[in-house]
Each structure stands twice: as structure tokens, then as C-alpha cells.
């Protein structure tokens, strides 16, 4: 059994230590909001916060997490930055298919938490690891700026 703190709750999971957090969340804990996209940390769909830092959960084994608290898309709305990002996303209808948006929102919320007023360059740098095949990038930039303005 491995103990991990997820969304403020300590969970015990019966998983092999090399299991990436992504699959623990999805298959064992029913937290399906975190998405599988590439499996090699190239697309960002599986982004979660570990002690506030945006990490790719497809490459993060549960044994590597230790005591660091994990936040997923299901709970990011409880943070100020996460709530502002979600609100801006709704106001601007950023999403299309939506599949990558959990990861986009997690990356954007982490950006906003560390840089309250990111410019285009900072946004591009922080968000370049998150692929959106529908091409919602124009609105993602706009959404982050709007969320920043609401800060």
C-alpha cells in the first residue's frame, strides 16, 4: 500500500510502486479528469500539481511522490488561480473538444500562481508543453490574461 495525499485527502492505493500517478488517479481512484494523451510527457494532458508545481502524471511514479500533496483538475477550483482560470475559460468559451483542457487549466493555474501577470512570452513558455489539437491556443492566451486581470 502506498499513501498519497490527493486533493486534500490521504488515499491508500494498492499499486505497484512504478505505476505512474496518472493510472492510479484514473483506474484506481476514479479521478478521470486527468487525461492520458501521449504517455511520454510530450502533450501535457495529464498535468497535475504536486506541491503546487505542474507535473506530468504519466511520468511520475507513485513512489516518487512521497509526502508532497497532489492536486488534480477535480479540486483545482478550490485554489484562487484555478478558480479564476476556470471562470475565464467559461466566459471565453476556450474549450472545444475539451480533452486537453484539464491539463491546460492545470498548467495555466500553476503559471498564474507563480506569475500573477504573465505576458505572451511567459504564457507561451509555460504552456508550450500542453498540446491542443483543436487549436484553442488563441483563447488560452486570452483566458490566462483575463484570469490574471481578475486577480
Amino acid at each position, binding site marked *: 500500500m502506498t499513501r498519497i495525499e490527493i486533493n486534500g485527502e490521504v488515499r491508500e492505493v494498492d499499486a*505497484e510502486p512504478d505505476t505512474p500517478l496518472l493510472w492510479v488517479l484514473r483506474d484506481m481512484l476514479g479521478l478521470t479528469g486527468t487525461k492520458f494523451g501521449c504517455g511520454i510527457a510530450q502533450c501535457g494532458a495529464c498535468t497535475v500539481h504536486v506541491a503546487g508545481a505542474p507535473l506530468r502524471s504519466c511520468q511520475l511514479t507513485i513512489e516518487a511522490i512521497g509526502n508532497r500533496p497532489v492536486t488534480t483538475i477535480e479540486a483545482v477550483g478550490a485554489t484562487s488561480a484555478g478558480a479564476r482560470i476556470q471562470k475565464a475559460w467559461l466566459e471565453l468559451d476556450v474549450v472545444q*473538444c475539451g480533452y486537453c483542457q484539464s491539463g491546460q487549466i492545470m498548467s495555466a493555474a500553476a503559471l498564474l500562481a507563480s506569475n500573477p501577470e504573465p505576458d505572451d512570452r511567459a504564457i507561451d513558455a509555460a504552456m508550450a508543453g500542453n498540446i491542443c489539437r483543436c487549436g484553442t491556443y488563441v483563447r488560452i492566451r486570452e483566458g490566462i490574461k483575463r484570469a490574471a486581470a481578475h486577480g
Partner: protein
Amino acid sequence: MADPLVAASRRAVLKGVFVSAFVLGIEFATARVAVAAEQGRGGFPFAPDAFIRLAADGEATLIMPQVEMGQGIYTGLTMLIAEEMDLAMDQISLEAAPASDALYGNPIFKVQATGGSTSMQAWWLPMRQAGASARAMLVAAAARSWKVDPAMLRTEAGEVIHEASGRRAGYGSLAALAALQAVPAEVPLKDPSTFRLIGKSHRRMDTAGKVDGSVRYGIDAMPEGVRFAALAISPVAGGRLISVDEKPARAVAGVEDVLLFDDMIACIASNSWAAMKAIAALEPVWDDGAFAALSTESLRAGLEEAAKGKAVVAKAIGNADAELAKDGTIELAFRFPMLAHAPMEPMNCTVHVRGDECEIWVGTQVMTMTQRAAAEELGIAPERVNVHNHLIGGGFGRRLEVDFVRRAVRVAGRSASPVKIFYSRELDIQSGMYRSIYGTWLSARLENGKPVAWRHRIVGPAIIARWLPPGFDGRIDNDAVDGAAEPPYDFPNFRAEYIRHELPGIPTAFWRGVGPNVNIFSVEVMMDALAEAAGRGPLEFRQDLIRSHPRARQVLDLAARKAGWDTPLPGGGPRRGRGISLQFAFGSYLATIAEVAVDDDGNVAVPRIVTAVDCGVLVNPDQVRSQIEGGVIFGMTAALHSDVTIRAGRVVQSNFHDYRVVRIDEAPQVDVILVESAEKPGGIGEPGTVSVQPAIANAVHAATGQRIVTLPIDRNLLARNRV
């Protein structure tokens, strides 16, 4: 022209839409009758047709015949019904339609399919009629209950109102009585000047769950007792499994079974990770079969050989061949690569086979094809297959196919539990279905600076012949020639022709933008070449040739003005240029102006895209804008990066590191200009993808002098001081 009822291309669709308006009455009536038999379904007191369910509390549930895969169609179709029914948008919830061609078949395809940018074109009238008809029945119910003339009643936001007496009744309270009213034989639709919803941007109805993680895509389906299956598939199409030692897979903790098939292996486990690890532990020996030596080079050589064959004529005016036999003919040959769709949600399908019945959880663009494919694999009747559709994490044509459904059913057929098969990204890229390679050959001749003859030859597969056999007349794939046969330009001598060429060993499929991707790219780059030969600017050269297409002229002028076509680009630094493209496809007019900057290594940056759109009535304007913004970026990926290549029968690329897609740091500013129009709606999911590719190519020419005739754009051609 083929029978319009089976026409499935955009070109045919344009005609088909008009046909639909006429056949619609029949189809819609059929749907109504069929549903009337099961009225009250699900406890709804008022269910007048296949689409509308009204509860006694006034809440409406609308059944969506088209799937939502990001294009915003759930909201668009809802607006059509709500407009005519005078429903309040906040009293509506949505459900995906069950499998039924009779009730939910796309009026253009005649099957339950979402693709080809047809949804709004196909349902613009039927959805409005459904709403108007339901409204008329609710009004009739109120009139009967209040003993007043129905003509004295009006409706608004889910209520029937009798002004004279001040009486009002919510739709819910009228539902039971409305169900007893006769379905009106004919019902007038609103005058567009009285629209309250159509034409005003409405927030998407599918976003809440998409920002908090609660939405369920097919991959998130977790039926009780579900097992997870990862696959290994023969890396060469048609290859067979010779042998494999299963032991290393079975040794992985959590693995429950290893199933061998003639062309694949499935490892079934209690979680996805164990299943993936088990697959990775195997060293299967495959017989690669007939296509073991296939390569991109051999595929291209096959296409060149096929191009020497006899073409069938898609459209001819005058005698282009005779004109083009004269001196001074300008010729360009274009080549297009294989492409993968790479939607962010990898292919997946969850299946539970129980005796002679089967339950499926999937996100699909083709409900009934999914149902039939599963039934076929199991040898059971389609009615025994219950398909639950989901919101789709990216389609782009990939989910118009059911290859992965068949695989899932084969695996689940050997398991007592429900099984979720999911593709790794590597499998998605390497065992997919692909946009084919295509070749086009364009010839034209100028006299006094104007084209007197134009010929456009297309060589490529007929996807429609496999995907919708009744849609293929045996000669011309209307999709393959779409964008070639009906250019917006006036040519006195004209010939568009087609040679069908199926690729050996490569399963080919539709891909966002379909035929127009290939043809409009060819036309628009050719137009720039002709303008150059005529000593004219690309804008004025086009303007002169679209005199009979005022809608084309309008978008062209709007885009040029917005982009500052005549203003100089900044000097110094990278080479810069602007390029134009103009198109009529999917029932919509688009003009795009791309601005590019090409550095010394030949890397192309695209700082700005301006697109002007006339897609007829703007049902939900902000979603039209959104589809252009996204479509442009999808097309940019194709123009700049995407190239699936084959070596030893295998796809070389495997994941996003080598199948590169545009990321936010490459994304341009996208300015979209929407034209207000009363014309019937055109499609909007694909036009932006098509439009941006030639605009970028023409901009690259303006910046570098290099005419781009091969995609993706080869930066080696653009590098300075190249060796």
C-alpha cells in the same frame, strides 16, 4: 451528377442541401411516426418527435443526432430547436442520440454520421421544424384548455401567453395535453427578422464539465468490473502473428490474461499501466506479409505511375485540352503527404459481451456503423448491440472509422468482464488510418494576362467508395474532386479530372478538410503562379476572376483590408511575406491572408492570420469564430509539420516528439471577420483548416521566392546559404 440522395461530397452536399429541403418533410415525418409509437418514452409526457422530450416541470431534454467533438454543434442545434419552440436555453439538457439511421440519420449522408462540415447544413431546417412543430402543439393545447383561438396566443421562453386575458402557462403544465394534439402537417418557420437566439453568440453548453474534469469521454467509461486491455498490432497492415512468448506479460502484476489473435495481441489487466507494461514485455514475431517492403518512396512511385492512366472528367467547360496544347502553358505538380489525425483522446472502446448481446461505451462520429460493425464481429443482430455515445476528445475524421471498435469487440468477445481497449499514442500514430498521399497536376494558359484555360487533375483514393458505398458512382469520388471542380474563378475553358488510385497496404481515411485540403491548396498556389506570370498582384488578379461570385469578392476584400495587404511589412530580420487564399467549400466562402517570417535556417513562423468568412447565417457567431481559430491552427500543423512516412511497411513516426503539431508558442494571432448573411448556413468545422495552408504557402513564396508545391513545407528549400 450522381443521384443526389447518395451524394456525400461537399460538392454534392451543396446540391444535396437543396435536395434535403425537399426530402426533409418525408424524413422528418418518418421520424415522427416512429417515435409517436413510443411516446411518453422515459416518462416524458410530451415527446413529439425523435429530438424533443418535455417534462412536466418544463425542463426539456433534446436528443442530439450529431456528436459533439469540439465543433460546438450541440449548442448550435439546440439554438435551432429553442428558437422555433421558444424554449428557455437554461431549461434544456442534452443527450446523445442512440443508434438509429431512421431517426437520427444525417439528412445528407442518410446515415448517422457527423463529418464533412455537414451538421448545420443538414439540420438547419429539420431542427427548426421540430421546434416549430412542438411549439404549435403546445399552443394548440393552451388554446383548447383556455377555449381561445390559437392565433391569439404567443410564446416566449417556455411559456404560452394569452395577452388579452393575461393568462400564461409554462410548457411543462401543457405537456400532457400537447401530446394529445395532432402533429401539424405543415408548420411555418419564424421570419429570420424575429430570431431571438439565432445570430447571437450563445455560450457553449458542454463547457462546465470540461473545465472541472467531470465530463466523461469514451475513455472515462468505467462500467462495473471493467478490465483494461492494451494492444500490440501487426506493425504492417495485413501482417500476421507467428509466435510470441506470453510468459513475460503474464508475469506482470495485475495482468489477468493474454489473448492472441492472428493480427494482434491483447493484454488484459486490472489497470491500464499493468496492461501497457505487459504489452511492452512481449517480443512478438510477425509475418509482415505482402507489404513488408512498402515505403514512402514506393507509394509515391505508385502514385506517379497511376497518374499516367486515363482520367475521368468531373467537370468540363469548352476545350481546355486543346487550349493547353498551345505554347506558354504553365504547369505545376503538387504532392501531399500521409497524415495521422492524432486526436488528443487516443482511440478507445469499452465493450461488454454477454451471450448474444453487447454493450459498448465509445465516442464515435458514426453510431450506426459502430453498432453494425460490432454486430458483424459477433454474428448477432445490430439491435442486440447497445451503443452509448460520449462527447469526443477530438475526431478529425479518425472517429468516422470503426476499426478500433472491431478490435475491441474481438477482445471483449473472449472475456467475461467488460473490457476497455485503449491505444497508446504510438499505436494511434502507427496503427491508425491515414490521410492518403495525393498528387495533383495543374495546367493553365494566360492570354493578355487572363487565364483562358485551366486543367486540374487529381490522383488519389476514393475514400467514399469504402466508407459509404452508395455515395460512390463508380467513377468519381466527389470528395476527392471537391474544391477542384467548382472553383470560384471564371475560366472559359476548364477541365477537372480524377484518377482513382488506392494505396497498397495503407488504410486511408477522411481527415479534417478532406478533398478541399488538396485541391484548394493546388488551385490557390497555382493562382499565385499565374498572377506572377501575368505581372499582376495576387489580390487584383483574383479580384478580376471572381466577378460572378460577389460573396467571394466580399470576403477577399474584407480580409485584404483587415490584413493591411497594401501596407509594407517590417524590414530587417527574417524574410517576411503575406499570402492570400480564397475558397468556396463546404457551402462557405473564406479568404485568408497569412503573414510569415522565414529565418535563415528556413524555419517558417506565422505571426498573424486574417480570415474573412461568409458561411451564410451565423447561427452562433462566436462558435464560428472559434472553429476558424482552431481550424487555422490545425491546418498550420499540416502545412508546416505533419508527414507520416513509411519504411519497411511500418509507420516511422510514433508520438508527438516526431509527429510534431503546432504548440502555443507557434500559434499566430488569428483575426476572424464574420460576414452577416441571410444565405443558408454553410459548414464551418473544416474551412479554416483548408484555407490557411495555401495562404501560408503563398506567403512563403512572397518572402522567399520559393514556390511551394509539396507539403509539408520543406525548410531546407528555404534556408539561406544551404549547401
